C-alpha cells in the first residue's frame, strides 16, 4: 500500500503571536515550530495502515528550510521517505497554490491513500486537502474520526452537526484527519537516529512546473479586537453571587 501523509510545520499552540507593526504578517522570531497537531493524526494513521497492510509511507511537506525539522519528526515516527518542497516562490502561497504544489509531487509517486490534517492551526484555512483532491481528481473525505481499509476501498466515519456518517470511497482518495482518529505516537530514540538517514528529496518550484501566484491574499494582518474588561462578581456568599450573575445576564447582557 502506498501511503502519502502531508505535513505542515506550524507555530506551537502556546506560541505568542505578535502582528508586525505594518500589518504585513506576524513576527516569527520567538516562535517554536512544531508539526501541525492534526497532521500528527494523519501520520499516525498512515503508519498504522502500513503496519497492518504493508507498503510504505511518504511524507510531503511544503515550507521553508526550517520545515525539515518537522519532516524529520515524521520520519522518526516511522515514515520511510519524504519530499520537501522548498522555494521562496511559495512564501505568499495560498491553499490553492499549496494544494497544487503537493499534487504535482504526489502525481509522480504511487499513491493509494493521501492523508492530510483537517486544517493547519496557523492559517486555519482547512482547504488544502480538498484543493489537493480536486487537483488529482480524487474523492475527498474530510474531518474523519475512523478509517477502515478494505482492499480497494475505505470506510470512514465523518461526524457532522448532530449525526455521524459512514461513508465508503474507492481508492485512491484523500482523507483529512481530526482528533479522535487515533492517539499519535512519539518518536522513539532509535527512530530519531534512523530518521537522519532516511531519504528526503528537496524540490523547488521550477521542478514542479506550477503557477505560484496566490488567488487569495492576506492584505493585512490585524490584532484581535480588544475585549472590554469583564465584571468580577464580588462577595462571600455563593448563593448571592449566583443571583447577581443571573440578574446581570438577564438585565444587562440580555443573554437569558
Amino acid at each position: 500500500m502506498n501511503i502519502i501523509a502531508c505535513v505542515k510545520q506550524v507555530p506551537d499552540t502556546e506560541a505568542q503571536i505578535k502582528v508586525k507593526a505594518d500589518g504585513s504578517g506576524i513576527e516569527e522570531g520567538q516562535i517554536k515550530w512544531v508539526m501541525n497537531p492534526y497532521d500528527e493524526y494523519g501520520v499516525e494513521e498512515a503508519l498504522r495502515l502500513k503496519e497492518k497492510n504493508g507498503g510504505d509511507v511518504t511524507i510531503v511537506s511544503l515550507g521553508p528550510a526550517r520545515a525539515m525539522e518537522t519532516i524529520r519528526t515524521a520520519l522518526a515516527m516511522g515514515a520511510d521517505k519524504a519530499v520537501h518542497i522548498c522555494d521562496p516562490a511559495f512564501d505568499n502561497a495560498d491553499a490553492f497554490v499549496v494544494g497544487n504544489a503537493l499534487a504535482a509531487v504526489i502525481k509522480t509517486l504511487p499513491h493509494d491513500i493521501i492523508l492530510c490534517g483537517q486544517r493547519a492551526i496557523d492559517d486555519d484555512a482547512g482547504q488544502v486537502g480538498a484543493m489537493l483532491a480536486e487537483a488529482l481528481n480524487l474523492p475527498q473525505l474530510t474531518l474523519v474520526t475512523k478509517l477502515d481499509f478494505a482492499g480497494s476501498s475505505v470506510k470512514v466515519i465523518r461526524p457532522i452537526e448532530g449525526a455521524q456518517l459512514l461513508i465508503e470511497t474507492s481508492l485512491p482518495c484523500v482523507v483529512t484527519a481530526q482528533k479522535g482518529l487515533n492517539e499519535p505516537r512519539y518518536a522513539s530514540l532509535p527512530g530519531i537516529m534512523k530518521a537522519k538517514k532516511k531519504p528526503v528529496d528537496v524540490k523547488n518550484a521550477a521542478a514542479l512546473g506550477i503557477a505560484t501566484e496566490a488567488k487569495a491574499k492576506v492584505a493585512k494582518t490585524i490584532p484581535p479586537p480588544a475585549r472590554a474588561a469583564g465584571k468580577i462578581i464580588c462577595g462571600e456568599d455563593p448563593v448571592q453571587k449566583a443571583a447577581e450573575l443571573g440578574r446581570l445576564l438577564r438585565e444587562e447582557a440580555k443573554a437569558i
Partner: protein
Amino acid sequence: MAKGVMIVAEQRDGALRKISLELAATARKLADQSGDEVSAILLGSGIEGLAAQLGKYGVDKVFVGDSPAMEPYITEAHAAIVAKVVKDNDPAILLMGASVQGKDLSSRVAAKLATGLATDCTDVKIADGKLLAIRPMYAGKCFGEIVTNSNPAMASLRPNVFPAVENAKAGAVVKVDAAVDAASIKSKVLEVQKDTSGKVDLTEANVIVSGGRGMKGPEGFSILEELAGVLKGTVGASRAAVDAGWKLQKDQVGQTGKVVSPNLYIACGISGAIQHLAGMSSSKCIVAINKDAEAPIFTRADYGVVDDLFKVVPELTAVCKKMLA
C-alpha cells in the same frame, strides 16, 4: 462582467439550516451596497418549497437543483453542480457556511473554479468594490483581511456570527439540471447515525454550558446538564474533560475540537488555556465560574464568579428557572 452575490444554501432532511438564513441576510446586505442581485443555489431532493423561505431573507433568485442524486450530500456531486451554476451565472461574490458540509464543499468548489477562498470568516464587507473578508488566524490570536483577485471572491461564514434578518424578496425559482454521471461519483453514504439526544449541535447552539477538569468526574456534568436544560442550551467540554473520558470528542470546544460562537458561553471549572480560548473567543457573552481568581479564563470573561462551581451552578440554575418561569 462578474456581478451579484450568490450563496450556497444548506438544507438537511428537507429543512433549511440556520446558516442558510444567515448567508441570505449577509448577502443581501453586501448586494444592497451596489444595487446588485442576490441569488442562491439550493440542492437536494424534494426541496423546491424551501426557496420561498430564502426569499424571505433577501434572496431574489433561487437556483434549485432538485434531484435524487443530490441527496444525501456527496462532495463530488454537489461540487460539480455548484461549480456549473456559478460558471453559468458569473457572480462576483460566492458565500457558503463554515459548517461541516460548507467547509468541505467550499474548498472543493474553490479548487474547481481556481479562485480564492477565505474560510470561517467573522466579518465581510465591501471595500473598493471588492469583497474584504475578515477571519481569525492562529486560533484567533490575530485576524487576517483577505482579498481575492479572481472571480468569484469566495468566503465561508462562521455559523451563529452573522444575524439572520428578514428582508422579503422574490425568491423566484430557477430550475437547474442536477443530474450527475453516476460513474464519476466514487463516494457513497452507507449510513447516517443520528444523534438522538435532541440536543442542538455546539456549533449552532445559542447557549453553551461547558465543563472542564474542575467538574471532577462525569457525574459532575449533571449540574451543567440541568443549567443547560433551563437555558435551552447544549453542554460542551474542555479537552481535559474529553481526554479523561467524561465527555465525548464531539463535545470538545477548542483548537482541536469545535469552534463555537453562541450568544452565551458559560465556562465552569475551565482554566482557559489558549487552545480552549481558540474555540470560544467569538462567543457574544462569556461567563467564567472558577475557584481560582488567577485562571486565564477571567481575562476573556464578560462576567466572572470566583467560587466553587458546585455551589454556584445549582444556584444559578434555580435563579434562571425562576426568571424564565
